């Protein structure tokens, strides 16, 4: 049976062809930190990293994953989480795990992004509560 590595552990994929990575993570592995808000790749709530690159897990087939998956559960100790809470960069919080997964991917390659780089990298993560100014603040101050 094929395996997918998630947050440092290996999990067997016992799922029908066509199962999305998001459904597999949430229902089969039990990692519900990854949210599904549109389920068709338009909103960014389901963002996870595959080998450090942000990927929309709701439109990624679990059988096609080739690389190490990192979800919000694997980023819980990342200073970005603290930065989001300090800056009040979340309201309802439903999009927040996806925002943090995208933000950590950004700063991994570019620890001090310019405001323009932040806006470019984060434009695929929708937030209906409108926490965007605070998200910019959080990413600008993530190193404390």
């Amino acid at each position, binding site marked *: 049976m094929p395996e997918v590595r998630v947050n440092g552990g290996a999990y067997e994929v016992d799922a029908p062809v066509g199962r999305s990575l998001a459904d597999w993570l*949430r*229902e089969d592995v039990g*990692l*519900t*930190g*990854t*949210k*599904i*808000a*549109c*389920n*068709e790749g*338009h*909103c960014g*709530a389901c963002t996870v990293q595959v080998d450090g690159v942000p990927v929309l897990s709701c439109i990624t087939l679990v059988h096609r994953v080739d690389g190490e998956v990192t*979800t*919000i*559960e694997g980023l*819980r100790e990342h200073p970005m*989480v603290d930065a*989001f*809470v*300090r800056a*009040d960069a*979340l*309201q*309802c*919080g*439903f*999009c*927040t*795990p996806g925002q*943090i997964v995208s933000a950590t991917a950004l700063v991994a390659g570019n620890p001090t992004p310019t405001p323009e780089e*932040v*806006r*470019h990298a*984060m*434009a*695929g*993560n*929708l*937030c*209906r*509560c*409108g*926490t*965007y*100014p*605070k*998200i*910019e603040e959080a990413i600008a101050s993530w190193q404390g």
Partner: protein
Amino acid sequence: MARLIKTEKEVEGRYTEQWVVVDEDALEQWPAGARDTVGRPAPRQDGFQRARGEAQYTADIQLPGMLHAAILRSPFARAQIREIDLRMAEKAPGVRGVLGPGTGPLTDEPAYQGAPVAAVAADTDEQARAAMRLIEVEWEQLDPLLDPDEAVRRNELVEEPNHDERGDIERGLAEADVVVAAEYRTQSVLHNSMETHQSICQWEGDDHLTVYISTQFVWGVRERVAKHFGLPTDHVRVVCRFMGGGFGSKNGPGDYTFVGAELARRTGRPVKAALTRREENLDAGNRNATIQRLRIGARSDGTLTLLDGEFVNSTGWDGWLASTGGPMRMLYACENVRTVEYAAKLNTPPMLAFRAPGFVEGTFGLECLMDELAAELDLDPLELRRRNYAQHDAMDERPFSSKNLLECYRRAEPHWERREAVRRSSDGTWKRGVGLASQVWYGGGGPPSYAWVRVGADARATVVTAMQDIGTGSATAMAQIAAEELGLPIDHVEVSLGDTARGPYATISAGSSTIPSMGPAVRSAAADAARQIIEIAAQRHDREQRSLSLKGGRIVCSDGGSWPLEEITCLLESGQILGQGSRGPNPAGMRILTFGVQVAEVAVDVETGEVRVDKIAAIHDVGRVINPLGASSQVEGGIIQGLGHTLSEERLIDPATGTILTQTLDAYKLPTIADVPEIVTDLVDEPDTHLTNLGSKGLGEPPIVPTAAAIANAIRDATGANVRSLPISREEMLRALREASEREQVGASAT
């Protein structure tokens, strides 16, 4: 002490006199200004749970044996089912139950696209949706009614028109030196909460039901579900610990909950009914479109003599008449005012409340009209507003409980005075300008709402109340209020909420009412607990009760002595101190409103019609501010939703068939992080001395109210063009620019 009083209850500006049981509010307000905890920025207490993906939303709940429901919805705006065959669906893999038209909200005469007609419950979501597609329906398509003016002509209305008049319109016309008439239109916008509408229903036996639901009002869901199934209300438990946004669309149980509960009853299994994003954009409510035909008259000095408006709301197949005329009736001192509001019944999905329903739409019309008048009179728009400042409520001659709109205007001046410099920074085809708009809305809350405060031997406190935190941070504000009253550090106070079986009745999280309704109840419960602690401490340390107070986690005596709180509470061992509190009455005979003003700076490319908002300064008067950090987030969030409403969001309907063209988030354009301007938040933070033991009003809705008009007025300042229709698409911008240049040419040839 509880007492029965005859009082006025206000709903959307309409007063009814009724008997209510209220507790007197015995506490004096705290003095104005920041205190140890209240009035100081506090990061939200559940922030880590949400940010780390640990918070369990309804979407994340998996119950053993849980089935998934899929609802078959009408693909047509108006149709009749000639025949429906459920047999294939019943035999499909994993299917445990199927419902057809006639059960609960399921209908064989759908009157809008998305109306529910049948439902399936199966072991998995995929199986349920696959089975749903096997339901065979023979449809008869009928002609939909889509034109709101035509609906008004035919008297097809969701409710009776609201005709409101004061003074004499003819006299107002006669006294006017200038009259401006204009028609404004606003579009239908969709809430699009990130967590779609969903619930899980689980029966215990045939007379107890638990509903886990993403809702703004656990008690309202309890009431309606109990009534629907004929159950005693205490046999229905409603749970909402975390929810992913509502904005007014999640005030009730929704059809999906009735369908899910019926499937759960028939199958004996818990059933989750979750809307897809596409269903969310069909049948989860909307802000209704409006047509506003307005007239304003004034003397040459700017004194208003006349305000007159006809408002046609495209309410949809169901819903209610939102007060689009409210701002016209309430914002300015004007003797002659007439508003007529219609709720057109159309074959489109029902509207639901959406963040300041009616007032967002009506403020766009009124505040644009004010600026068109200012241009006619050659008066400064801010000065025009000052000259028509309402000193008291003109609708029924009531005093305001508090009003600091003049202070808001004063604080707006530095932003307003940038006009010359901003205009001068126009560059080539990019024209720049500044505009402003005022805000009026409710936000006073009211009884009933209750809270308990529990203090244990470890000197930590828990606020227990069955309210919900829909993402506004209200739980953190409650912790701040209790911490302040108990003299505890905020991290020694927790809030337990979101479960009708685990706390007393609490307000709906709508109408900007959570803080003004719940906050005073929490303070009163904390004060009850504090009183008991002081009674015990007075006996233990042989002091007079009145010499003792609670501060910094200690019991402090006026003689200089002080003891850690824990020295007293540890005597409790397993015992607990229990405080209870409730929301007192609103001040009688007064009008409780929120006010504000926003100043927008925009840039318009007059060649392409592109509009860019550079900055919005928001100054609002909502009484005492509990948490300045959370408050600024509410202001930013409201403005950003307003920005979408102004520039990019629009539910598009095919005019031939009445079907919805914007069902996905690539078609329906929400603002992204790249669209956000600089936002400056300034809250007056002056307690309303007549309102409760806190003097706080709500802030959820006020910030979205004036944004569209401020932007449209800035566009006029930049270009001279009158945009009168939302969203301000490039087409609308170019139309307004063309119209302005034609007006200029006519003016030039006349002189």
